[in-house]
């Protein structure tokens, strides 16, 4: 078992980041490109090598020196490679590599080419650290690092105010989640005395009857962290705004990899959730609610990337739903297929935007299938995959999740229902997008679309193939492979009937959604408007994304601002601190006025004072005060003590 050292995997992107970040400005473009592509390629090669030789036993690699050692607590800098992280690594480096290649074409004309790629490599570095982490603290480093890279890349066009604000928003909202994660880390240290995943598992296993209690608290804190990073209710608000970044970034970070870190984290720490049914239920409810909530918003969005963003939130909800019903492998399976088809859809959208010269509004597109044939083809694959139509990848994973939910009993039925409705909505808005972009008549005159270069189309085709065939591995194989890491997928009451019926129902739902979209957006283009007119309030509510941003602004941001300005600004800073400062200044001034006569600048006066000081010191040191004066300072202090 000669696996190359694990630390090589994050090392290459880090090297790429450092080289491009420091020297990139001065290098010619082809060298920047080579460097930027070599990093993920090398990482991917190492991961492939590891995957080929992986024999089922987790590989742990620990830095020989202790990283943090406080009392009994010892935290090492360790990496671990097991089934879960292997799958994740394949997705991260593989999709990452494709998106790097795509970016070469997409970003070719942009300023800050080297900066872009150095950030992208930085992201890949931190993502690899996150995935490979052998304990929660290393994971936290990756967690924060991807947040940083995400912030930098969302604000890549920092000249644009909206982009800069979106970056800040993402950063701040993520802080709320990170707070949860940190509290969970502290609780873990306090209760288990370790942060290493395997040790936590053994310590929990040691007392099998331990349910709920502090574990629930830890799990809920972790869930808060996960909702922040993975854009779940209530912390999803940053993700739609994050679309301000370049489209490949949206594909890589905000669809395929980083936002799935929450799912990964829950799967990684599933032992905690397994001992807290309550937390698990909350996970499922959050997932289901987010899924349907985001899907409804997605129906009414007109920005191509925002539709995809809400779709991403919705699909992430699916993954949480899967985790919530303890079907972690199903969640990871969906994570993988979603990475393929959502990256594909984002990149295809990017190709459309690129072809239209930056246009993102769905209402100005239409009939592009002739002009952008390859993009059209791959988008079709993506849409079919996300809608869950066999034999595309999405069908298998979504089916697995819905099935896993369904078999959970009555509560599971409800979850299944929500999931099914979400699937319908997903199908509707995805085909809506498909119809509005590619079919029908061109809605705008002044667009001159041109097909993208092959550096962009190549990755698209590759991802399309993955989106087509990624699910054929089947949930049974996948979950049995993952079983050592995430536990077996417990599908009781497995009856072939039920599974087949549910699959047929899911396909039927997806086809129904297609039909609705066909009617509304192709056959009868005027229908949506009448529909919106029929229920204007509902339409307005959805179109304004349920006013969540406004509510957050009114409930949280505005009062906080008011508090800062009035109390902190006027009272604390102005009156108390300012007054104190003024008082101190006045005192200093007064003292200075008195003392400045001393500071005459005359050397001899200074010397006189020095001599006086020396005389005083000598007097103090050499004269036996105790003998002269019975009440010396020492006796005085002693007397006070008694």
């Amino acid at each position: 078992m000669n696996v190359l050292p694990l630390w090589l995997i994050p090392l290459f992107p880090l090297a790429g980041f450092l080289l491009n970040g420091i020297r990139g400005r001065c290098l010619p473009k082809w060298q920047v490109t080579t460097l930027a592509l070599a990093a993920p390629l090398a990482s991917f090669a190492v991961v492939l090598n590891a995957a080929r030789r992986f024999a089922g036993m987790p590989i742990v690699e620990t830095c020989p020196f202790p990283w943090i050692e406080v009392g009994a607590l010892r935290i090492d800098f360790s990496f671990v490679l097991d089934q879960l992280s292997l799958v994740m690594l394949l997705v991260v480096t593989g999709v990452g590599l494709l998106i790097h290649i795509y970016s070469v074409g997409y970003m070719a004309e942009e300023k800050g080419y080297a900066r872009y790629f150095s950030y992208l490599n930085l992201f890949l570095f931190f993502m690899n650290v996150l995935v490979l982490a052998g304990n929660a603290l290393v994971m936290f480093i990756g967690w924060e690092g991807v947040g940083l890279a995400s912030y930098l890349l969302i604000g890549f066009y920092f000249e644009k105010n909206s982009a800069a604000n979106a970056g800040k928003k993402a950063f701040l909202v993520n802080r709320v989640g990170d707070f949860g994660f940190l509290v969970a880390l502290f609780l873990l240290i306090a209760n288990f005395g370790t942060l290493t995943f395997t040790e936590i598992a053994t310590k929990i296993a040691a007392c099998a009857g331990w349910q709920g209690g502090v574990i629930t608290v830890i799990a809920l804190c972790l869930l808060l962290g996960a909702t922040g990073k993975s854009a779940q209710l209530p912390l999803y608000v940053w993700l739609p705004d994050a679309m301000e970044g370049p489209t490949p970034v949206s594909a890589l970070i905000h669809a395929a990899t980083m936002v799935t870190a929450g799912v990964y984290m829950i799967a990684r720490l599933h032992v905690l959730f397994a001992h807290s049914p309550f937390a698990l239920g909350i996970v499922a409810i959050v997932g289901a609610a987010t899924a349907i909530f985001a899907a409804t918003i997605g129906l009414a969005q007109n920005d191509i990337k925002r539709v995809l963003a809400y779709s991403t939130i919705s699909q992430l909800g699916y993954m949480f739903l899967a985790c919530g019903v303890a079907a972690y492998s199903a969640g990871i399976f969906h994570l993988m297929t979603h990475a393929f088809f959502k990256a594909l859809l984002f990149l295809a959208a990017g190709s459309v935007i690129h072809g239209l010269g930056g246009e993102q509004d769905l209402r100005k597109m239409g009939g592009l299938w002739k002009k952008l044939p390859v993009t059209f083809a791959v988008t079709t694959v993506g849409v079919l995959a996300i809608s869950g139509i066999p034999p595309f990848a999405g069908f298998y994973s979504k089916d697995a999740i819905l099935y896993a939910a369904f078999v959970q009993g009555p509560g599971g039925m409800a979850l299944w229902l929500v999931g099914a409705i979400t699937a319908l909505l997903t199908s509707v808005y995805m085909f809506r997008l498909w119809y509005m972009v590619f079919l029908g008549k061109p809605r705008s005159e002044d667009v001159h679309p041109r097909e993208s270069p092959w550096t962009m189309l190549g990755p698209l085709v590759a991802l399309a193939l993955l989106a087509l065939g990624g699910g054929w591995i089947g949930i049974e194989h996948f979950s049995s492979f993952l079983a050592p890491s995430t536990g077996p997928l417990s599908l009781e009451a497995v009856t072939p009937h039920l599974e087949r019926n549910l699959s047929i129902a899911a396909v039927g739902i997806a086809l129904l959604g297609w039909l609705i979209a066909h009617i509304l957006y192709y056959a009868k283009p005027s229908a949506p408007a009448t529909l919106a007119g029929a229920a204007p309030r509902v339409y307005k509510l959805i179109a304004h994304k349920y006013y969540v941003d406004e509510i957050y602004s009114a409930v949280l941001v505005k009062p906080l601002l008011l508090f800062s300005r009035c109390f902190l600004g006027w009272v604390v800073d102005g009156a108390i601190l300012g007054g104190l400062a003024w008082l101190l200044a006045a005192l200093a001034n007064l003292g200075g006025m008195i003392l400045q006569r001393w500071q005459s600048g005359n050397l001899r006066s200074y010397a006189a004072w020095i001599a006086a000081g020396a005389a005083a010191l000598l007097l103090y040191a050499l004269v036996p005060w105790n003998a002269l004066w019975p009440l010396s300072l020492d006796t005085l202090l002693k007397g006070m003590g008694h």
Partner: protein
Amino acid sequence: MNGFLAQQVPLSWFLLLSAALFALGIVGFLFKRNLITIFLSIELMLNAVNLSFVTFASQWHAVKGQIFVFFVMMVAAAESAVGLAIIIAIFRVRATLAVDQIDRMKR
């Protein structure tokens, strides 16, 4: 005659001399107006201290006391080089060596 020759000198006399020289050095520092003379007074104080070092080295039969004086000499040499350079620099700017007139940092 020989008895007189063998007469011992108490070490405290050396120390008293050292103290007197030191005090005279301080007085020089306080009451001399010329920068160079003030500097000379500092050297006088250093020498006074050196004398007490050598005396104590003799008292305790310790070589290190003498080595300390050796170090003081080296440091004093360095100090006088820098100090005199400073005096030259001051004189170049102020055209005077009277300390009472050199009481501003700015020109």
